[in-house]
């Protein structure tokens, strides 16, 4: 068999077909309010008109009650409590942080829902109940993005009691 015949007889097993599509996302009305505020260094939660719980970050509606949040915004502290965490040692295409890094579910003081973010700490120090605060980018770099918060960092406060945050796990 000649080389060309041999090639012809080979099955085609892989067909590379790169797909590229551009999308123009809208953050949405509610997230826009939140992002405009974060560009000013403010963390805005929204209060559910039915049960008064504070959602942060908010997606514009209460998923439990199916109602749109009104204008009842609540400015939150940038301090909070780690309710649970993971140490990530595997690369992921969407994340550029150097490995390993710590992902945390944080409940900000005054909020009733969790925010997923990253923690800057020694791996052995991270634990549930740890009190943390946001570390912001330099003010001149602030934009309409949650990336204005670089990461969270431990603060010198006693750990929160398990009972106080266990409903957020």
């Amino acid at each position, binding site marked *: 068999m000649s080389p060309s015949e041999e090639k012809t007889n080979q099955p085609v097993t892989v*067909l590379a*077909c790169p*797909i590229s*599509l*551009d*999308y*123009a*996302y*809208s*953050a*949405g*009305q*509610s*997230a*826009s309010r939140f992002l405009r505020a974060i560009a000013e260094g403010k963390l805005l939660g929204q209060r559910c008109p039915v049960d008064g719980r504070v959602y942060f970050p908010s*997606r*514009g*509606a*209460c*998923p*439990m*009650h*199916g*109602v*749109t949040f009104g204008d009842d915004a609540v400015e939150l502290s940038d301090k909070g409590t780690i309710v649970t965490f993971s140490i990530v040692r595997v690369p992921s295409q969407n994340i550029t942080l150097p490995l390993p890094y710590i992902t945390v579910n944080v409940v900000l003081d005054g909020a009733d829902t969790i925010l997923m973010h990253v923690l800057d700490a020694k791996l052995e120090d991270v634990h549930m109940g740890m009190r943390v605060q946001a570390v912001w980018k330099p003010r001149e770099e602030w934009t309409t993005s949650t990336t204005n918060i670089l990461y969270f960092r431990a603060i010198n406060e006693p750990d929160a009691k398990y009972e106080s945050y266990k409903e957020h796990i």
Partner: protein
Amino acid sequence: MREVAVIGFTQSPSVRREPDRNEIEILIPVIQALREQTGLSSKDFDFICSGSSDYLAGQSFAFVSGLDAVGAWPPVCESHVEMDGAWALYEAWVKIQMGYADTALVYGFGKPSMGDLPLTMALQLDPYMVMPLWPDAISIAGLQARHCIDSGVLRPEDMAAAAVRDRGNAKSNPNAQVKGDFSVKQLLAEPFLANPLRKSDCAPISDGASAIVLAAGDRARKLRDRPAWIRGLEHICEPMDFGVRDLGRSRSTEIAARKAGVSNDKIDVAELSAPFTHQEILVERALGLTQKTKVNPSGGALAGNPLMAVGLSRIGECAARIWSGEADRGVAHATSGPCLQQNLVCVLEGN
């Protein structure tokens, strides 16, 4: 078979681009309005089913956040099809037939303005042989229209007449996007978009959402004076390959129409979801509609085309005309896939 009726229907206006609201913010008021219209709350729905597309949203699991709009608490019996909401309605109807539910909420939503729709739709095609050529959706439909014209199935004048009719009807529909008085001559003078298709032959790109409530038997009678009873609900899928089917007719619509009993009695009103004028004509013929039927009183898909909701909206528009007494018997149609590949036919009656 259990008696099942459409007893609630709401929709957002079809618009070319929702600049501010995300998909869920479009959907929430639609479902809120439906709760008000029917007096039902989320707890009253025994089953919930939705239709949406991840590729329209540009992200995986786009339908998950739809649960936020429903207020899915306590947890709900719920399912989702990666199809137009009309097929979600089919699934909900099946659940009611099997006695799993008496009342069901169905919704569909899409925001195609985020991406390049004709190009995105190319991803529906055979990924090995056809898609790498990136034929956009309008060009594919253009091939079918050319086939129809050249084989004498229909004339460009017929296509323009369909657009004139739908745009004219849409004048009375506050939710329609493309409406007004036009003439065949005027539309035929338009330049080609993808020969032989002109812009007026193509449904607009629309953002939007719609929702429907189904209820069985006495529950339906309690919730609405004149429920729109589903007397036939069928859907059929053809092969995708353009070479193996007759593009000059819609065989799947014909089969679905026969099984749904469209021709058993007169049809007062028809709401069609075909996104191109030549396809609308093929569907009309496949349904066997005559002059006695008022076609697309809302303007149909050619007047407003919120993908993933547009088929469901046709069922709603048809039902609304039965509720009002304007029609006794109607047929609604939904489609999916290139060149009318998959079609759903729903027969609704007031009595």
